[in-house]
């Protein structure tokens, strides 16, 4: 199981606990990740609002041109990067005019992409390449009794709807949570949008959405939320204090990357749990498992 790995910009910044956990977890599962050399920002869901879809997708395609010689599937962990890269790749493969024009643009830097790669979302790889059984077999510290809400986020499953799992009620993350020995709690808001990049321009949107999501997780009895999306993780984790101040709520819901939970269940070295980066402390929830600060 070898992959070209596209980490994405947030893993170099706010999503550092994702990066610190995803690589050791992948290794523990027998996956080899080779970072795409000199990768560039995929444009996320923002660049096309400034320069249009076409230019944004050409920017994203530079990464494929750099990765194609190795011929490995491109593994993407960030939901926004997956949206941008998967749609660009699909267009390369299905739209001949786009393929030709985009290659003219890439040729300005001596690059070319033939459209031979596959772009893979990390949850999909976890269940289809690695397999739930293999994940279960790797568990050294079963998370028995831990109640976890699997927050898939909005873009993760809706980028390529019905190509993998259900776009509104996906089950894949819950399966991973259960494979770790934990209990996946009922969570109707598991694909509700968290407010995304409205943090700076319109934080009210963020707080309204995050409040519904956190309340839904709490109602289901969850002791923590896990997610594969850097934006969701950051919004839900970093805004609880501010919401408690402004909305008179009393949230104390830890929000982890799902790979952090895997690192704990696999009993990998604590650096790979990367818990010091979590703003809402997870230690109360983890104490019954013998994990303390």
């Amino acid at each position, binding site marked *: 199981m070898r992959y070209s790995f596209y980490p994405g910009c947030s893993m170099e910044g706010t999503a550092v606990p994702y990066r610190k956990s995803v690589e050791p977890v992948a290794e523990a599962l027998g996956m080899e990740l080779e970072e795409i050399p000199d990768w560039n920002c995929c444009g996320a869901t923002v660049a096309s609002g400034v320069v249009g879809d076409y230019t944004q997708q050409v920017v994203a395609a530079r990464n494929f041109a750099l990765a194609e010689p190795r011929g490995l599937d491109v593994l993407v962990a960030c939901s926004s990067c997956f949206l941008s890269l998967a749609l660009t790749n699909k267009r390369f493969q299905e739209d001949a005019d786009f393929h030709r024009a985009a290659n003219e643009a890439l040729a300005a*830097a001596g690059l070319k992409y033939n459209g031979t790669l596959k772009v893979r979302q990390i949850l999909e790889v976890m269940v289809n390449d690695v397999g739930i059984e293999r994940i279960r077999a790797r568990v050294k510290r079963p998370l028995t009794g831990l109640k976890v809400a699997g927050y898939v986020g909005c873009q993760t499953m809706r980028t390529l709807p019905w190509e993998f799992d259900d776009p509104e009620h996906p089950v894949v993350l819950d399966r991973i949570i259960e494979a770790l020995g934990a209990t996946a709690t009922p969570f109707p808001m598991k694909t509700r949008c968290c407010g995304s990049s409205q943090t700076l321009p319109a934080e009210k949107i963020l707080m309204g959405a995050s409040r519904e999501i956190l309340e839904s997780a709490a109602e289901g009895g969850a002791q923590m939320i896990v997610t594969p999306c850097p934006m969701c993780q950051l919004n839900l984790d970093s805004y609880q204090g501010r919401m408690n101040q402004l909305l008179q709520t009393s949230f104390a819901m830890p929000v982890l990357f799902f790979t952090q939970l895997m690192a704990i269940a696999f009993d990998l070295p604590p650096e790979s749990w990367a818990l010091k980066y979590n703003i809402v402390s997870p230690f109360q929830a983890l104490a019954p498992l013998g994990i303390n600060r």
Partner: protein
Amino acid sequence: MADCQVSPEAVRYDPAFSREVYALENGPQIKKCMQCGMCAVSCATRASMNYSPRRLFNLIKQGKKETVMKSNTMWMCTTCLMCKVRCPRGIAIVDVMHDLKNLAIDQGYVTHPQAAFYQAFWKEIWSRGRVFEGGVTARYFLKRGILGEIKTILSMKDVGMDMLRHSRMPLLPPRKIKGLGDLHKIIEKARSQRKEVS
């Protein structure tokens, strides 16, 4: 229904604006809209929008340029993709929203704060090849004017301090990509091609 209100205004459609929008990358899709309202009831941020996507598409058909371009609808879109998944006509509403943002920026309709955020984000890509979140934030506040935004900055300081305390906000940007010059050539070529096409 608000759409049907009796109004003393003359009824005038402006096909020039609808044509302008239909010529955008995803513009032709708007013509397929049957006004069913599925996007309106599905939209994550409908409550904060001046007009639902359905109403916005209707306004585009009517050619109400100023109403459309000054509305916040496209700027409130968080790209959650719910509308795209549910639209019975298969319209990629979210991609139309990108086009409308793009058109608004090109024509100077940039008073909504999200426009500053989008421009700041693109500047980061252009100048480093990767996006440094601290850089986007700094550029955003510069664009909006530090003085006007001072209240926001101060009120956000707790969130920022929490992030700093947990090492979630590196203060220095990562290195620029090596192929930044190449990336610029690719972008410039792509933008010139786009002008030829439209």
